[in-house]
């Protein structure tokens, strides 16, 4: 038996800059029942707090609800592993909620073949911001990326759509079936997962060649 190995705080994420969760990877438990606590203080203060909720985020996690989430300061946190033989603390992790936003995927992706004014057909893609995210208040400004590929292809073709929530794809092959996905990212933060795959078949007679 020995004191516990050193835990590591591996990831902190916020889906909408209003709440956030941190996860850690336990070290070895030294062959003994080991207990983990997450403690933190906020930069500019010297009160040490303990994790408010160890369950919502699943095993080895700490969930900070709105009540415990602030964007005005940096969290300085550490995980402590304790067993009968002693305790071991993780390295310190600094967390600024604004920089750890990983939104959910965009929703309501819809595909449509449209005809441009000079009779060329093009694929028109539309989508909505992910749930939970309040883009109205300017609290979270999202940028988007689209990827599509012909049915049998292995390589995706990606297009950056900036802050637009619609996009036009030109010169696709008539008669071909395409799969389309969209993802999003806040200005400071991480790309979401890709949205559910949507597919569309380009009509055989469509004149897609602009």
């Amino acid at each position, binding site marked *: 038996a020995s004191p516990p190995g050193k835990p590591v705080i591996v990831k902190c994420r916020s889906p909408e800059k209003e709440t956030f969760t941190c996860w850690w990877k336990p070290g070895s438990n030294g062959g003994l029942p080991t207990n983990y606590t997450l403690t933190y203080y906020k*930069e*500019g203060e010297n009160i040490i707090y303990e994790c408010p909720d160890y369950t919502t985020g699943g095993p080895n996690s700490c969930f900070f609800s709105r009540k415990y989430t*602030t*964007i*005005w*300061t*940096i969290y*300085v946190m550490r995980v402590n592993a304790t067993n009968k033989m002693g305790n071991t603390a993780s*390295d*310190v*992790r*600094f*967390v*600024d909620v*604004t*920089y*750890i936003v990983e939104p959910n995927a965009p929703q309501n992706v819809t595909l449509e073949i449209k005809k441009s004014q000079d009779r060329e057909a093009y694929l028109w893609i539309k989508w909505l911001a992910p749930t939970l995210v309040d883009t109205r*208040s*300017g*609290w979270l400004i999202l940028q988007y990326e689209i990827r599509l590929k012909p049915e049998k292809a292995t390589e995706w073709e990606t297009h950056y759509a900036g802050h637009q929530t619609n996009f036009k794809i030109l010169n696709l092959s008539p008669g071909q079936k395409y799969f389309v996905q969209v993802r999003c990212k806040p200005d400071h933060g991480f790309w979401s997962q890709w949205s559910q795959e949507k597919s569309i078949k380009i009509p055989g007679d469509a004149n897609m060649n602009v």
Partner: protein
Amino acid sequence: PFCPNGASCRVSLRELFDRAIIVSHYIHSLSSEMFQEFDAQYSQGPGFFTQAISMCHTASISTPAGKEQAQQIHQKDFVILVIHLLRSWTEPLNHLITETSRLPKDPHALRAKAVEIQQQNQRLLEGLDKIGKLVDPEITDNGDYAVWLGLPALQSNDVESLLFAFHNMFRCLRRDTHKVDNYLKFLKCQIAYDGSC
């Protein structure tokens, strides 16, 4: 340890202002919508409410009414002034949320907006407190705010007086949230961008 914001392990003054401005802008947008919704729902003809304009309870807080005046105020005092202005609405908003139930035609949407404004105000006050300490560590905020004596008017049994009281509150809230938003955008450029955004 990886420090998210680079060298110093704290949220910079520039970032604090950017975040505060997102909140103050949103609060004013909500207040404007609330004012217009109330006007559309309860006004009884053009000029109905203009006859009942009365002073805002925050008129006692002397605030700059133009750019030149704003440029005369010491930055630290200006931050305190904004805090006082915002804090002056904590109590009235609490009562506004409760007393909206007296209004005819169930003002559910108005109450929801008032609740959101109250939450965002508290969030902004937390941020301004942090900004104040960075602008001047010796900043002393004596907890001042403008006293509000408008509760009896919000509980009036006469419908017209009740409407006038609510209208004046929504009008003053729209005005003061615009001031807070305007001043923060100005202070950001003066303090965090050395006077030139």
